[in-house]
């Protein structure tokens, strides 16, 4: 629960502090999308090599594949719309939170690593979903960018459910 609060705050508090739903622009949203995916790719790469449970390993690899696919689509759309993703406090907070998570995971091994990775994935996907629903979708002004967010949202829900299912088997 504490982990969830920390991750949620990292995503939401800074979305609120740095750019409210009214003031956030498409260039910043594009940057947040790409950063949020990259953070999960980094953690997934670590899990794919360090996890001991085969399901956790497979999940880590899938996070790399899925979020890389979403990022390619986001980058293609940004290029087509001639939007240059703009760095912003939310992206910076996501990146810092991701780096901290990776550093913590690197200090763990075996079952401890698996549990910490999956727990964080659950909290992270929940927090990103909240940001997508409360800030990014309402804030997107370009219809195609909004459409992309709406279309990839179910993937985050599926990842969250998948991670919860794995978590229930780790205890």
């Amino acid at each position, binding site marked *: 629960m504490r982990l969830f609060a920390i991750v949620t705050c990292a995503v939401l508090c800074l979305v609120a502090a740095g750019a409210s739903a009214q003031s956030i622009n498409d260039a910043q949203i594009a940057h947040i999308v790409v950063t949020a995916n990259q953070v999960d790719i980094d953690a997934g790469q670590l899990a794919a090599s360090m996890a001991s449970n085969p399901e956790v390993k497979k999940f880590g690899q*899938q996070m790399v*594949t*899925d979020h*890389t*696919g*979403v990022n*390619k*689509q986001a980058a293609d759309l940004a290029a087509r719309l001639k939007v240059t993703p703009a760095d912003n406090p939310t992206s910076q907070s996501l990146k810092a939170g991701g780096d901290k998570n990776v550093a913590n995971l690197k200090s763990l091994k075996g079952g401890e690593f698996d549990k910490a990775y999956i727990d964080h994935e659950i909290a992270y996907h929940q927090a990103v979903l909240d940001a997508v629903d409360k800030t990014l979708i309402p804030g997107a002004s370009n219809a195609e960018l909004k459409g992309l967010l*709406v*279309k*990839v*949202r*179910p*993937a985050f*829900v*599926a*990842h969250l*459910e*998948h991670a919860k*299912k794995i978590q229930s088997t780790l205890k």
Partner: protein
Amino acid sequence: MPRRFNRRSSRHAALTFVAVAVGSWLGSLGPGAAEGPRPATHTVVMEAVAFQPGVLTVKVGDAVVWVNRDPFPHTATSAKFDSKDIAPGASWTFTAKAPGELPYVCTLHPTMKGTLRVTTR
């Protein structure tokens, strides 16, 4: 007696020929003429982590094509078939061989569920 039989038989053959010709003409009208003898091809789109349509009814011998329009892989997996990973933009075809109800999932995304109903032709 044999001559009369032959005449009737050839008339029967001619009528059969006409019936078959009309039947195949109706069959050529496309998927709308589903009652025709030709197997049809149905498409299930995989997009936004969902199968569309979620429930599909086909006849034995029909082909079902799953098309992945998401930017990451999906599978269509049931007790009777398994596509394995379908890459973004790729597709996979299954031909229904026996009647029955086949619930299926994407093994990569547990929230993604569909049903294929196969009925007799």
